[in-house]
């Protein structure tokens, strides 16, 4: 079975055979299920940006605990959806994935003082 199809079926029905171990799954495999991924991550983005997720490098156990905590905090995910999200996150952002490289941006305008700083 093609990996993309396997992941789609996993989302639809948790009784199907499990996907390959998360640490060996590639990000490309997961991104091929764009619609599901986008939908599930959209639930997370009700409260926080995607960047908050993309910088994590966690084990499946840690991802499961994180998603459980978020569901307890009101994230609108059913049981099957939460399990699918855990699998997807564990496959996409495992501990051995290279660190995310955060970008530098202009300081947000609401963090600027009203006037230029006086000399120290």
């Amino acid at each position, binding site marked *: 079975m093609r990996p993309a199809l396997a992941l789609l079926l996993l989302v639809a029905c948790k009784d199907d055979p499990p996907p390959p171990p998360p640490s060996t799954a590639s990000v490309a495999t997961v991104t091929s299920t764009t619609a599901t991924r986008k939908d599930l991550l959209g639930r997370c983005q009700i*409260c926080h940006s995607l960047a*908050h997720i993309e910088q*994590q*490098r*966690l084990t499946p156990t840690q991802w499961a605990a994180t998603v459980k905590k978020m569901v307890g905090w009101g994230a609108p995910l059913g049981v099957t959806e939460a399990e699918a999200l855990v699998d997807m996150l564990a496959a996409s952002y495992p501990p051995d994935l290279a660190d995310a490289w955060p970008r530098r*941006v202009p300081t947000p305008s609401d*963090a600027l003082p009203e006037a230029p700083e006086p000399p120290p």
Partner: protein
Amino acid sequence: MILSRRALFAATTAFAWGSRAWAHQLIERSPRPQNYETPIEVFSQRITPTESFYIRSHFDTPTIDLEKWRLTVDGLEPGQLSLSVLLQMPHTTVEAVLQCAGNGRGMMRPRVPGVQWMRGAMGNATWRGVRLRDILARTGVGPEMKHLVVSGYDRPTLPATPPFVRSIPIARALDANTLVATHMNGHPIPLAHGGPARLVVPGWVGDDWVKWLERITPSPEEAKGFFFEKGYRFPDPPGAPGEPVPPERMHPMTTLNVKSVIARPRDGAVEPIGPCTVTGVAFSNTAIKMVEVSIDGTTWKRAKLESATSPYGFRVFEAEVKLKKPGRVRISARATDESGAVQPVDAVWNPSGYLHNAIDLVEIEVRQ
């Protein structure tokens, strides 16, 4: 091309605005809620400019109307302080380091969840405001009140998400350096940094520096809820790295721990053979006694410290090391404070990645 006076004005105004907006940059960890890190090179100076100061938020930044903003103080008559009343009260200024509990979390191994801060979730500013004890003196806090419960105007997006509520022991609230601060580095505190008023608790970890102050309540008990009963707790004694820690061994974090950070040379820099100046900042919950620098991890050279201005502020250090041959060199810095606490080789691993303070290391390449 000839510009009209209007076009010239528009162009120069745009340039001036643009240059200000782009003059200072932060490392974006998460745009929502706002979590931005200070670039490492900023830590070669004592005061962190507000424009370069890290931002930490649990929830979306609240909208605040300064005219309508009120600080509710339970036990006070009348029970609310407006900003104009607060600004008219006697004020004092304290220079102090604000550091996020999770600064350095990105260096914890095994990895832990949370914002993956490296070295820049910290900054040193002057904070001006009203002593909290001057406000509490008006309430007649009784001896049965052991804690001060503090909350801000920020709200979680979803109703099931717990609000951010903290408490500090009343003794710390009554300390002369604990402020309801309205000014940061000489200007009103910007909204992203918790304006118009935030709590300032010098020497204590940033989770107690509650932003967008809304309510303070003297209480016989510690705060309830996730962010005090579960969050921001540190193991004592610590467990094995990666292992869960039983709840009874997790205690509320209070003070900062001793730490130094190298600003220059930067990690990955290429330096010529010869003398090399190592610069950075050090801080703790009390005054810094010394900072040492090493290029072999064995022999340590005492760095020169800038004169102290506040026991709670940054101490800038500088040391010259001699780079003798080509190759990779690891430069490390370790601080010792007046209590005798020394920066450790390894940080205490904990499930939330708090208070990382391992000896700081940068690796450079020395070339002919």
